[in-house]
């Protein structure tokens, strides 16, 4: 049966004049991977310090494997609980080896003799965190990611049951963060190590954690699975900003997004632009157009097209057609309606085949109705229609006053120029 690894019972804690933790209660089971989240200053670090007996609770009890953490001897506590701080500052030129050896410090005994067992644990920790080759290097000369792996190795050398990490990975580059996280996941899966990770990256944490603890101004607001805790309304209240939560369409992982995606940011230009896209060729266009402040409509797109997904996520008005079906007259009419209220029609670098050739015909109708039409060049390479119908259409359009564009920068310049006129 799984044991309770770490339990807070009605714990209030803090400093002389300032109570930071307010009646916090939770239990972390052995083998769990838990992320502790919450805005800066909400008490996450204080919670870790209280759990590690660095701070004595003002009231309540902290239990480590069912023992009051303040009654456990320091050496035993270190064999149960390891803490990786945000950053280890080594003022002197310790080698990696010497740093990691500190993990064995409380087990050395009075005479400070290092046993074979100690050496083995140190070496194994270094192998596990992949820092063995670095062992004669100076700790301070290592990259941030390497330093964090060394810190992890040092804590692993304590041979603890629980590892707590205090925002130890937030400041790392993406690749280094992944390295450290992979080690943590390996420890959790292979050695059933219990992990409590203080994290700022909600999306990343959601993909690896069993459970979330959400804190806000010293209180534990919610504990539960990522799906239970990552509720947009709850998060937006706690973090005091607009956040969106969505499922990754491919992996099903939850993603927390800051809602600063043009919808709230842009100053409106009151210019409507209709985009003809497909197959993912529209995503970057949509984003840029929204940022620049245009009203964007798009279509006709297939319902399963990635551009359709993007348009939906970005709240762009879109004309949809069932997948694998010819574009219906209704959809064409709807698209033409959108074009009527637009100033400009843009064709993306979408490949044209018999299925979406009708979109090009819509574009030439737009030109006839007096709209500015901007066509992505290079149709030669993406014309899959019989008899090069698309190429003929595009050539005709260009001769009748449509403009060609290659890069998005070029397109944006075009748009600006047209709107100034």
């Amino acid at each position, binding site marked *: 049966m799984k044991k309770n690894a770490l339990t807070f019972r009605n714990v209030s804690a803090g400093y002389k004049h300032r109570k930071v933790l307010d009646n916090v209660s939770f239990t972390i089971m052995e083998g769990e991977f838990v992320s502790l989240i919450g805005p800066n200053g909400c008490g996450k670090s204080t919670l870790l310090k209280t759990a590690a007996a660095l701070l004595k609770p003002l009231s309540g009890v902290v239990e480590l494997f069912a023992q009051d953490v303040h009654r456990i001897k320091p050496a035993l506590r270190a064999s149960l609980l390891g803490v990786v701080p945000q950053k280890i500052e080594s*003022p002197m*030129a310790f080698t990696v080896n*010497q740093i990691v050896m*500190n993990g064995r410090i409380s087990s050395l005994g009075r005479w400070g003799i290092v046993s074979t067992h100690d050496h083995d644990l140190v070496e194994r920790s270094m192998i596990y965190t992949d820092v063995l080759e670095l062992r004669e290097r100076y700790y301070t000369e290592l990259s941030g990611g390497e330093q964090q792996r060394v810190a992890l190795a040092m804590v692993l050398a304590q041979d603890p049951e629980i590892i707590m990490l205090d925002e130890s990975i937030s400041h790392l580059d993406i690749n280094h963060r992944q390295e450290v996280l992979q080690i943590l996941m390996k420890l959790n899966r292979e050695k059933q190590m219990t992990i409590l990770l203080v994290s700022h990256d909600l999306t990343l944490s959601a993909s690896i954690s069993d459970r979330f603890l959400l804190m806000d101004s010293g209180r534990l607001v919610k504990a539960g699975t990522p799906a239970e805790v990552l509720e947009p309304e709850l998060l937006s209240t706690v973090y005091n900003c607009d956040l969106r939560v969505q499922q990754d369409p491919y992996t099903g992982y939850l993603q927390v997004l800051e809602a600063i995606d043009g919808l709230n940011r842009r100053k409106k230009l009151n210019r409507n632009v209709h985009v003809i896209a497909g197959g993912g060729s529209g995503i970057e266009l949509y984003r840029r157009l929204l940022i620049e402040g245009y009203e964007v409509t798009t279509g006709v797109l297939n319902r399963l097209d990635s551009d359709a997904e993007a348009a939906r996520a970005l709240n762009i008005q879109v004309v949809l057609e069932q997948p694998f079906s010819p574009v219906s007259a209704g959809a064409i009419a709807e698209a033409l309606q959108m074009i009527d209220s637009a100033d400009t029609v843009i064709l993306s670098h979408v490949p044209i085949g018999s299925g979406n050739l009708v979109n090009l015909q819509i574009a030439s109708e737009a030109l006839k109705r007096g709209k500015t039409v901007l066509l992505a060049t290079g149709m030669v390479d993406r014309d899959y229609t019989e008899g090069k119908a698309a190429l003929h259409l595009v050539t005709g359009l260009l001769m009748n006053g449509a403009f060609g564009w290659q890069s998005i920068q070029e397109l944006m310049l075009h748009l600006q120029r047209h709107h100034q006129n």
Partner: protein
Amino acid sequence: MGMKDSQVCADNSFTGKTIRKAGFRIVMFIFAVLFLLALSMLLGPSGIGIPDPDSFSGSAIISLRFSRLLMGMMTGAALSASGVVFQALLRNPLAEPYVLGVSGGAGLGATLSILAGSGLFVSLGLPVVAFIAAVLTLMVVYGIASQGSSGHPSVYSLILSGVIVSSICSSVIMFLVSTASVEGMHNVIWWMLGSLQPVSSGQQLLSAVLILGGLGGIWLLSPRLNALALGREMAHFQGLHADFVLVIGLLFATLLAATAVSLSGMIGFVGLIVPHVMRAFFGPDNRKLVPLAALGGGTFLVVCDALARTILAPIEIPVGVVTALAGGPFFLIILQRRMKQAWIA
């Protein structure tokens, strides 16, 4: 479950080239120490060379040189080891007995005891009074630095209040000296200048016991000093009674510094620079650093003393002058080339 369950592998990679290289360096260092100590036995105001041990004057010179060598070894080792501990515990390259007011306090205690007492009481009481005064000073410094923080003074407030208390101590010493009798003034100033003139054998013995005890205590503490060098919180996380180690370490370092001051007066420089130079050569691992710095500090002071009594013979230069004048440039060159190994921050 952690890694306890898994098998212990018979072999691990903690042997090999680097350890052999470090070992070679240490052996070379010990040879250098023996050579320098032997050399300093050959130097003195009576001339360079081995005096005839059979003649009365010759054997007297040899025994005099030897007892100065012992004085130098004790004082230098104590100051240097105490500097190692202060620097590791406070994680600051400037930390040393003088900066924290420990030497100043010990000096004030010693001054009081020289002015007040006489004879055997002075010579035996000196180290004890100096130690008590130094501990009291450290407590005052620690107390002042702790004000406003939640019981844990920052390194900066410690050093700041140390410097302040230290200068108060030296002002009080100046005041005491200026109002003392001529004889008392002479004694205090002679002692303050710092010299390795042998003190009474009783005081030498007592000092030797205190210093050996202090060095042994620090050496036992040295693995924990490594952990504390990464900060008090980290040491706590790793299962140390961090505050206990800190206090014990400071007490041992204070004992060493106070004994050195009571033995040989105010000799600066050794406690600050020798630890850095030793760290530059042998790395910051305190298990090695404590004994090596003690050896290095002692030898350095012995050599400086040999120079001090030889260069302008028969006039003897205060050894504190030589430590800074001769040692300064020498150590500066070493540190310039190996600064990275000596201290990072």
